[in-house]
């Protein structure tokens, strides 16, 4: 990638983030229904919280002053005060980031590894039972609402087989003698949410891998490699795979929005104490400052992740680099 292109990409990402900030402001301040007015009327909001909101938004000032107050606060990392938790939004959110990263991170790694594996075999044995099965599997997982899949997993493994606990991250009120015991408890709670998340992703990754690899396998240089008399396995792993893997980076990046949606639903079903569950709680309590804070964090992270994938791609693929 040229330096100019890189600057352009960074600039676009920056503009998108700015647009997200403005959009967020408009959404919560200008749109009919005025959430702020609702916050003030909320019976759970104490005098202290209302005063906090008033100060935070600079309500007694002109709209442009309010707008800059909002931006200044954001850059200081001040997202307002949650009126359910009665604590700064940034603190409430920070405590929930790790569980979500744990869930999403491990599920992504599993899904990418398994998806690539299945995709390779499906492409290699095109038209076989496994290939048709992969297509069927991904079409079905694409069509199943994530939360419902979670419910079914819960019914089968927790209620029916009683293999795993139904909710949370740790057994409540339990104290652990050793770190190993704690990890074991965590693992028992984490298996189902992670498994559900992986199931949702594997189909798409496998299908993408399969389709790219089939495309690559029809390229001239593969024909050449075969003509040279290389073994089929050698051609597949040394010639086809390196190029076939590239689009996976893009797909994983594009999918992040989908993963966020999945995390919200899965965390809700399994009461996993992460950001997704927090967003669900904020939504149902109509805790607007908290909802706004999570929305902002999630959106900006997704924009940055896409930028990162773009840059990584251009470094790895020499055809894009030049």
């Amino acid at each position: 990638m040229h330096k100019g292109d890189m600057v352009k990409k960074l600039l676009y990402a920056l503009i998108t983030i700015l647009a997200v900030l403005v959009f967020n402001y408009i959404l919560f301040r200008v749109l009919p229904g005025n959430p702020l007015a609702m916050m003030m009327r909320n019976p759970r909001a104490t005098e202290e919280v209302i005063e906090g909101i008033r100060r935070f938004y600079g309500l007694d000032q002109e709209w442009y002053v309010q707008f800059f107050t909002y931006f200044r606060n954001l850059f200081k990392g001040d997202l307002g005060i949650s009126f359910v938790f009665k604590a700064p939004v940034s603190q409430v959110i920070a405590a929930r980031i790790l569980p979500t990263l744990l869930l999403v991170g491990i599920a992504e790694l599993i899904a990418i590894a398994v998806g690539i594996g299945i995709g390779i075999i499906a492409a290699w044995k095109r038209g076989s039972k496994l290939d048709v099965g992969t297509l069927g599997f991904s079409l079905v997982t694409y069509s199943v609402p994530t939360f419902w899949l979670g419910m079914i997993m819960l019914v089968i493994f927790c209620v029916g087989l009683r293999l795993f606990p139904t909710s949370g991250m740790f057994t409540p009120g339990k104290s652990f003698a050793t770190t190993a015991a704690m990890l074991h408890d965590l693992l028992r709670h984490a298996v189902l949410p992670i498994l559900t998340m992986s199931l949702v992703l594997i189909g798409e990754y496998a299908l993408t891998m399969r389709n790219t690899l089939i495309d690559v396998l029809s390229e001239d240089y593969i024909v050449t490699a075969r003509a040279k008399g290389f073994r089929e396995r050698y051609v597949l792993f040394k010639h086809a795979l390196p190029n076939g893997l590239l689009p996976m980076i893009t797909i994983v990046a594009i999918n992040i929005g989908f993963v966020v949606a999945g995390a919200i639903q899965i965390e809700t079903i399994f009461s996993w104490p992460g950001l997704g569950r927090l967003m669900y709680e904020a939504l149902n309590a109509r805790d607007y400052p908290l909802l706004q804070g999570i929305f902002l964090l999630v959106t900006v992270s997704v924009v940055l992740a896409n930028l990162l994938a773009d840059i990584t791609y251009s470094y790895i693929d020499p055809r894009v680099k030049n």
Partner: protein
Amino acid sequence: MHWSLRKKRILKFLFAVRKNKMALTGAVVLAAFILIAIFGPVFMPFSTLDFGEVEDILNPPSPKHLLGTDDMGRDVLANLISGARISLMIGGVATAISMGIGTLIGIVSGYFGKAVDNALMRFTDFFLVIPWLPLMMVLAAILGTSLWNIIFVIGITGWAGTARVVRSQTLSVKERQYVERAISVGAGSGHIMARHILPNVFPLVFANTVLVAAVAIVSETTLSFLGLGDPTTASWGMMLHYAFESGSTSAGAYWYYLPPGICVVLVVLSFTLLGYAFDEIMNPKLRKR
């Protein structure tokens, strides 16, 4: 395009659909659900407002209630059938809104090019990159939970992909000779976009519609499940919401939480199958060798 030529094309397309097993399965299942949505409520033995007595709560399937009763003593089958109407209606109208916005932005962007294109595509990218579920949750929370708000929220978040696809097709269509001829005889931009470009991007819009519809149905279900549906209507998503909230999963009331989910999967799967098959029929590259 001359009418008889277009008719021939449509017949050819329908023939291809009939020959394609996936498309045929999708079409048949979908048709069945649409018929149920339209005529089902007429044959329903119970009203969705028939709240039973205390002993009618969460009863398993029986000859009287074929799919049992829910946590409020209502017939699950009756709710399922009336849910078909609401879910398909929400999905349909939201899809129409998305396709309208997407097609308009795509054609205008592709046709005018330059600054207009640049501005509209940045706007489109913005909607493509923002994670859809948080956006919908935030919008629905602010606008309030009514049937039309849900439709609106799903409709205005789902158009970006369509706009992209329509734009690229418009770019190629506008270079064709008949467009140049229309310009040279003095046709206005509006006329060219409506009369020459729209009919030519239409097959693509049509193929995209089924994919957008699949997303719209899943979105409705998910939003309703998260508590953002209209509490006065019984869509499949609302049924699943109440099923989960009432603890039917741990109570083993499979007749309550399974049927709405299966219906959603079947409808979305048939849309997906149709979309996949349309892609195969229209895109010669993907045809089986």
